């Protein structure tokens, strides 16, 4: 048996979670959460911690020199810096549409990088 503590990041409440694991590393119980998202977060945090990655990419011919991007879904936490480097290499040509996929399956994570705003051409 092992006890672990997390702060749930699923919503602004930030519940303090107390997680009990059995000897195989499986979640036995979660306390301190106010809702089912806390339980799901604890399970994911133990087995496969993930975060949404949000950054910018360089833009050519855009009204702004950079365009915000995000991982469409949460990406594996240990891959975030690898993803950051992939994203930093990218340059996109305006116009860009919100939701437009800029990188498919980034770093083999099965996660797509999408634009998170519309960006028109500079002219």
């Amino acid at each position, binding site marked *: 048996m092992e006890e672990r503590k997390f*702060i749930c990041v699923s919503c*602004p409440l*930030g519940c*303090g979670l107390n997680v009990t694991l059995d000897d195989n590393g499986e979640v036995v119980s979660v306390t301190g959460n106010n809702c089912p998202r806390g339980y799901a977060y604890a399970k994911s945090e133990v087995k496969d911690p993930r975060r949404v990655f949000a950054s910018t990419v*360089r833009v050519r011919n855009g009204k702004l020199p950079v365009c915000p991007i995000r991982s469409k879904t949460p990406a594996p*936490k240990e891959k975030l810096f690898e993803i950051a480097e992939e994203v930093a290499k990218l340059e996109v040509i305006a116009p860009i549409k919100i939701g437009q996929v800029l990188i498919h399956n980034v770093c083999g994570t099965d996660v797509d990088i999408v634009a998170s705003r519309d960006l028109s051409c500079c002219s």
Partner: protein
Amino acid sequence: MNNNIDVLIIGAGPAGVAAGIGAKQEGAENVVVLERDWDLGGILQQCIHPGFGLRTFREELTGPEYMHRFIQQAHDAGVEFRTNTMVFQIDKDKNSVWTMNKERGIECLNPKSIVLTMGCRERPLGAIRIPGTRPAGIYTAGTAQRFVNMEGYMPGKKAVILGSGDIGLIMARRMIWEGAEVEGVYEVMSWPGGLRRNIAQCLDDYGIPFHLKTTVTKIHGKDRLEGVTVAEVDDKMNPIKGTERFIECDTLLLAIGLIPENELSRMAGIEIHPVTGGPVVNDLLQTSNPKIFAAGNVVIVYDLVDNVSDEGLIAGKNAAKYALGKLSNKLKKIPVKGGENVRLYSPQFVTGESDTIIYMRVTHPIEGACKVVAEPGLFTQRLRYARPGEMNEVRLKAEQIQAKNPDEIIVDIKPL
């Protein structure tokens, strides 16, 4: 044409865009939102991290994505937006709104009602008097956020962050993701300014040290920042001798609080609350001038954009009612007062005309069971804790207020 505007809204951030939607929903014909930037969305344009709109949309959006949805709704509703338009004056007596725009020139607008949605500003370095030099490399966290996320510049390579407001925490992670080093976050108070989840996902995830009861006591460097001295503080917030430590850094980011932006409100002559720093409002978000409404961070600084949008919608609807002559000029004015554990709250009056939420913050953390109340006997809710960084709410029903008809309402948070 200029004198044909029903509801004029100043600022196209989350509050202003929602106010536009609200005004159209209530039946106002000509609803115009003025925005000084070239694009809509206000500060959420630069808040590219997720965490917005969980309550409104049941998913976590980035700032631009959240605004995109509201802006589309506003366009669909027929709200007119005028970008690159600066309001430089509101007359006290006639309430004319003077605007400037490169194509339209200077205009004097005389709308039937006005909604103030100018948002807030960051407390600058000048507000906290740190000894030392004034080299380049010191920015408010929001300025740095705009540089990185919208203009494509990095403020530096090694940063210290003073203050633990949410923008500072978010920028700590952002700097790390862009390859910079963040030496630590220093907070003069004994509790964090921002949300706990941001300490977890922005600092703890990356091993960034977080120091409470510690502040920057000196700035070093002539042309460019070369470092800062930090020191622990005592209970009176005075630096403790012998705890000073020099940190080499080229960037100092400030996340030391937000102040409602009310230069125009003051010109308009409306009453400003000394503690919130925003206009005194009733539950309809009407200011001391019945023609002028206000919503969002210009009134009181909220934790969540969802609340800002909610309030914007309410202000827009009531401004439309006023413009259409549907709002009584004989509204009740029941004062709301804060109890001993409440630092600030809004609205300051209720009319009993609408269901309302009174938003408030505690003066200090109450770690343990407590209850949020509205006396006399209007509301009570148990809480596990109350913290200054997390707003609390009292929800009141119009019928309930009308039935009790109290002389005043006192909101407070009491330990159990």
